[in-house]
């Protein structure tokens, strides 16, 4: 029996259904991310778990207890918002103490917990400051401490890093993950940033148009996307148009050249047009190697120097691929318009359903 169970959850606003038959089991202490484009229903699911929205149908249970009919203030759930939502009239310490005061804990316990929380977020020295005297990153850490102070059963974070600078975003996400591990708190983290989700989650739920498209560990989601949407949303994906040459032998033609993809093509016949996808890391510049056995002729479209990596876009006939190469001080990158050889690992190509 998992700790947090969401089953057949549905939510409609008037005539539009924004969450369809959403199912998810989360284990105690697990860190699960909801990943999906803006408007796909991530916040709505989270708000139903928190109790701010009532499901149209479906069940949510936490620790074996059905919570759908509980008010938000009865659920013992910690919530962190994108906009921090600290109480401006209270100091940092008073903000963190709020939930404990509401729960009528003895003052000594409140003081001790506030101290503990402030050192957890490494802001011991700022307890007397007001929220407006803190940076965005500090405010969000206080919001996290405030949510954790009451020892909630579940922690929900709705795009907590979206309002922050890129640098702070990375360091704070590591910090959130470290704190989550330390406390072993069951956590749902909402984001539209695939890198964020991939880097800190135990499992990712990729959402699309109100449905869970795929649930799995980051490695699995990235390497074995179950649908075209997941494949294109998670990571940069190159898609190819190709023709099936021999379905049983797994041979296709890309731009007139036969390529063995090393798997049987089951749902298409010889002669069909199909789409394939390939991750940038399966593509590289230059002649074929052991790892990338197929060579194609290409022409450079653009070269973006990003520092340690260089992002190249090249056209292979009708198809366009984008891939990265590492910066090499002794070999300058090709320039746009140049004809090059591009090699790829055909075995790593994904057949996409239409």
């Amino acid at each position, binding site marked *: 029996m998992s700790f947090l169970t969401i089953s057949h959850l549905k939510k409609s606003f008037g005539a539009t259904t924004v969450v369809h038959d959403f199912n998810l089991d989360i284990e105690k202490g697990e860190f699960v991310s909801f990943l999906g484009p803006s408007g796909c229903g991530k916040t709505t699911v989270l708000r139903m778990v*928190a*109790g*701010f929205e009532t499901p149209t149908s479906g069940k949510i249970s936490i620790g074996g207890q059905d919570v759908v009919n509980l*008010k*938000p*203030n*009865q*659920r*013992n*759930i*910690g*919530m962190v*918002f994108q*906009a921090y*939502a*600290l*109480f*401006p*009239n209270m100091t940092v310490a008073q903000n963190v103490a*709020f*939930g404990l005061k*509401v*729960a009528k804990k003895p003052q000594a316990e409140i003081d001790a917990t506030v101290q503990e929380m402030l050192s957890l977020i490494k802001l011991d020295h700022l307890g007397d400051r007001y929220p*407006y*005297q803190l940076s965005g990153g500090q405010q969000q850490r206080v*919001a996290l401490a*405030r*949510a954790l102070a*009451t020892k909630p059963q579940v922690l929900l974070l709705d795009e907590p890093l979206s309002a922050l600078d890129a640098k702070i975003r990375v360091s704070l996400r590591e910090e959130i993950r470290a704190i989550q591990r330390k406390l072993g708190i069951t956590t749902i983290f909402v984001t539209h940033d695939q890198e964020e989700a991939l880097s800190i989650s135990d499992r990712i739920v990729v959402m699309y148009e109100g449905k869970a498209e795929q649930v799995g560990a980051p490695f699995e989601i990235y390497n074995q996307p179950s649908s075209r949407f997941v494949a294109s949303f998670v990571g940069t994906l190159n898609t190819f148009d190709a023709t099936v040459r021999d379905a049983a032998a797994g041979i296709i033609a890309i731009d007139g050249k036969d390529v063995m993809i090393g798997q049987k093509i089951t749902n298409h016949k010889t002669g069909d047009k199909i789409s394939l996808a390939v991750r940038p890391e399966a593509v590289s510049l230059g002649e074929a190697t052991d790892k990338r056995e197929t060579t194609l002729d290409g022409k450079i479209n653009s070269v973006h120097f990003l520092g340690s990596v260089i992002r190249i876009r090249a056209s292979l006939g009708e198809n366009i691929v984008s891939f990265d190469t590492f910066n090499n001080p002794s070999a300058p990158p090709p320039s746009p318009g140049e004809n090059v050889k591009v090699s790829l690992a055909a075995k790593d190509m994904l057949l996409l359903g239409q």
Partner: protein
Amino acid sequence: MKTNRFWSWIALAFGILYFVVPLIGTLEFSLRMRRGVYSLDAYWVILSDPRFQATFGYSIVMALVTIVVGIVLVVPTAYWVRLRLPSWRPFLEFITLLPLVIPAIVVVFGYIRLYNTSSFLPLTGSAMGTNILLVFGYTMLALPYMYRAVDTGLGAIDIRTMTEAAESLGASRIKIMWSVILPNVLVAVLSGAFLTFAIVIGEFTMAALLNRPAFGPFLQLIGANRAYEPAALAVISFAITWVCMGLIQVVTRLNKSLAATKR
């Protein structure tokens, strides 16, 4: 540009003259009670008049009660409408503006008809009942100002997320109102309160027709029967109003400088 400035100054000068000349005239006149020299005699007469003390005290108490009733009525209503019924806001705004278009005399006659001694709720039958009625009347008169001030204050903070944050921390509605919402709109509430105070202190129609010993009717009584004292009273009531307006400025400034440090 230059001519623009010029006309602005002319307009300003005209405005100042328009407001200040009668005031100076009144002030000057109020000081002439003693023949031949300027003196504060008229003020002493007023301030030592027991009726002044009684009516002024009465009106202050009424103003304070009105402020409390106004806050209790307006803050939760404006909050709830913003939070849960945003589509009702225009309707509520319209309702709160009605006191500006319905003359107080119409309202008070309505009250007297509805709540007279032979009605279902004979409020006018006792002094206390009439006081209550008067407070409700005042609350209504102050509604446009109180509602606007509070609603603007609520608009300046993210009440929705703040409410949800407090809710997820276990707080009840009342706790949220009291510890989260009210402290954050206090400045707005205070400006509404000072305006209410200024309105109630000088109000005549309702108090007179409900026959309550308020400051407004006293002003009128003195005005009708004396020469110098009404001028002194007028100056005093101006001063009270100005103090209220000044206090609004002070709290708004304080809040602005606080908000500026928030950036």
